[in-house]
């Protein structure tokens, strides 16, 4: 298996692929740095354009954007206290105080080095852990795949957010959208109302652009005030080779946060923001000087930024090997892989080792590139770009959305559909319905149904076919553990709290 890893390396070093990676990282940093634009949105806008590209060029762009955006979010988080991406929220805790003290440049350098470290650790984990996982390939027939999908659907409970009812409504909505189109077995129409355009189901990108990109655009236009003036006028940047030795004392935090980020990444349904929060808390807990945290402790920036980048490649481990996207970005990347005929799942490593392992290398190189590209971008010049007039920014994004969705199938029908989802997404966003369950529901709902019904046909209508072998039973047990485990844990924590109070 690992020989494929080495064999795929020469392909990755082709100039077009490296160029794609560089462009991706740069674009990712810019996108991440713009409040309201996330990696999710950038990649969902990008995916349809990659139709005509070589797979590795397309995937290099995506890997670059993902890595770049996870760091880019730190720039406005540090300079303006506006997290550029959701995962950068924890970066504001110490990054912004540092900027106020005139150490913004140092904060950004810590962020970029930590991000790169997290990204590299994650990429290496992906390279080493994914191949063994892919060996279980052929154990997964329809019954087993059904249980995998159910397992993934159950991870929705981690995505529900504060309000369980709303989270479940989001999930049901997502699953319902997934059944539009032709029935997986009989091929008859379901809810297509005679529209041939709906027969293949609703493309994930249409839904994603509608839900994730339109609401922020409307927000941009709703309050067109210029972003408030920053303390970033005085960054106090020193050359990175002089500041780097000072950072080496974070090594424990780097390793700990990287492990947390990778672990969260492998768990389906979690995500960069959860990784960043957890690792920030853990780092503070083990610090000798917890009182400096929140007042400009560079180690806090390091913890948060390492973890949110360590989440990136690791989230692809379940996505590539089992077809279960760990995060929304991983979900879109699966779409990107599908476009190039790369069916995610156990067979992927067998059928397309060059591309899959090349993709992994790109994650590693993307993380390394981050230091060079991010390091030079994180200067005063970037603060100016953030002052781009918001109405202008908004209208440019609108155009990109239209191009992106139109390019999927080359038809305006999809654009109107996207606008419809945008309206729904806006209402959901404003009423605080969580969006990730919709995405996960759309991806896994129809998938679960199709495999359930295939399994039932294989079992000739007998539902016991779902429990007939060890793999299925293990998956059932895992699912139960995922659902029940957190409940038990919450009980225990509540109990402890009650005891300590009493």
């Amino acid at each position, binding site marked *: 298996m690992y020989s494929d890893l080495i064999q795929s390396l020469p392909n990755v070093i082709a100039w077009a692929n490296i160029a794609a990676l560089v462009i991706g990282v740069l674009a990712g940093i810019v996108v991440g740095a713009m409040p309201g634009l996330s990696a999710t949105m950038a990649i969902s806008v990008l995916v349809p354009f990659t139709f*005509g590209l070589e797979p590795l060029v397309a995937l290099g762009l995506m890997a670059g954007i993902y890595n770049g955006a996870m760091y880019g979010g730190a720039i406005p988080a540090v300079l303006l206290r506006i997290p550029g991406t959701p995962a950068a929220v924890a970066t504001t805790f110490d990054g912004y105080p540092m900027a106020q003290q005139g150490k913004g440049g140092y904060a950004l350098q810590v962020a970029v080095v930590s991000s790169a470290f997290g990204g590299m650790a994650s990429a290496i984990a992906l390279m080493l852990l994914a191949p063994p996982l892919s060996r279980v390939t052929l154990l997964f027939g329809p019954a087993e795949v059904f249980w995998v999908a159910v397992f993934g659907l159950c991870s929705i409970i981690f995505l529900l957010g504060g309000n369980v009812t709303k989270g479940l409504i989001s999930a049901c909505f997502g699953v319902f959208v997934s059944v539009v189109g032709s029935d997986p077995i009989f091929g008859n129409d379901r809810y297509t109302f005679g529209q041939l355009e709906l027969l293949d189901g609703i493309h994930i990108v249409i839904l994603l652009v509608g839900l994730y990109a339109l609401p922020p655009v*409307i927000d941009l*236009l709703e309050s067109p005030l210029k972003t408030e003036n920053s303390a970033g006028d005085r960054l106090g940047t020193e050359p990175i080779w002089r500041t780097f030795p000072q950072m080496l004392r974070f090594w424990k935090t780097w390793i700990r946060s990287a492990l947390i980020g990778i672990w969260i990444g492998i768990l389906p349904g979690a995500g960069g923001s959860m990784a960043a929060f957890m690792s920030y808390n853990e780092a503070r807990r083990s610090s000798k000087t917890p009182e400096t945290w929140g007042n400009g402790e560079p180690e806090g920036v390091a913890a948060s930024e390492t973890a949110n980048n360590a989440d990136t490649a690791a989230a692809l481990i379940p996505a590539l090997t089992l077809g279960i996207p760990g995060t929304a970005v991983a979900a879109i990347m699966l779409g990107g892989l599908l476009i190039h005929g790369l069916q995610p799942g156990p067979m992927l490593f067998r059928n397309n080792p060059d591309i899959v392992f090349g993709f992994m290398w790109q994650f590693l190189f993307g993380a390394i590139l981050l230091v060079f590209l991010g390091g030079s971008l994180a200067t005063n010049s970037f603060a100016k770009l953030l002052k781009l007039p918001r109405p*202008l920014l908004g*209208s440019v994004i609108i155009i990109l959305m239209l191009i992106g969705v139109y390019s999927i199938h080359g038809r305006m029908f999809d654009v109107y559909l996207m606008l419809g989802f945008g309206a729904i997404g806006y209402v959901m966003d404003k009423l605080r319905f969580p969006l990730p369950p919709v995405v996960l529901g759309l991806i896994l709902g129809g998938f679960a149904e199709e495999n359930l019904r295939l399994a039932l046909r294989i079992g000739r209508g007998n539902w016991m076919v779902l429990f007939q072998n060890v793999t299925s039973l293990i998956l059932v047990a895992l699912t139960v553990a995922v659902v029940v485990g957190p409940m038990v844990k919450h009980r225990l924590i509540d109990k402890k709290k009650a005891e300590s109070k009493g």
Partner: protein
Amino acid sequence: MHNKPTHRFLRAESITAFYIIVVAAAFLIPTTDLAPLSALLPAAMLVGLILLALVMLITDQRKAAAGEEAEAVVKSPKRVFGAFGLIILYAICVDLIGFYISTALSLPLVAFIFGYRSPVGLAIATAIVLLAIYLIFGVSMSQEFPTGLLWAK
């Protein structure tokens, strides 16, 4: 606060819950035509939506009864509806008169309406964006964009 609800049934959450129920119920009608296994999942989801929306409605009404004020959903509804309307208008224009013309018109228009008034800035931005799109998508990716239904025939 112009969009503060005057009536407890006009709270944004209640209205949304009500709409979810109505739409989900409407989708149940075509569901009856499907074969049993084919209808299983969609029917379960629709019924789930109806039940959950009912819970949401009741929760929100309880809050209303308890005198809790609903949060303002949008800061300025005019701008929101305006923005959404303009986006739809832009899509229709692309369909009817073609991508490049509509984009050249709508980019400065939207930016102008929403508060960016510098004519030089608008002209430069429009030129850069159009050129970039043409070069990146039109030339290097050989993407075709709608040419406009009005001009076809």
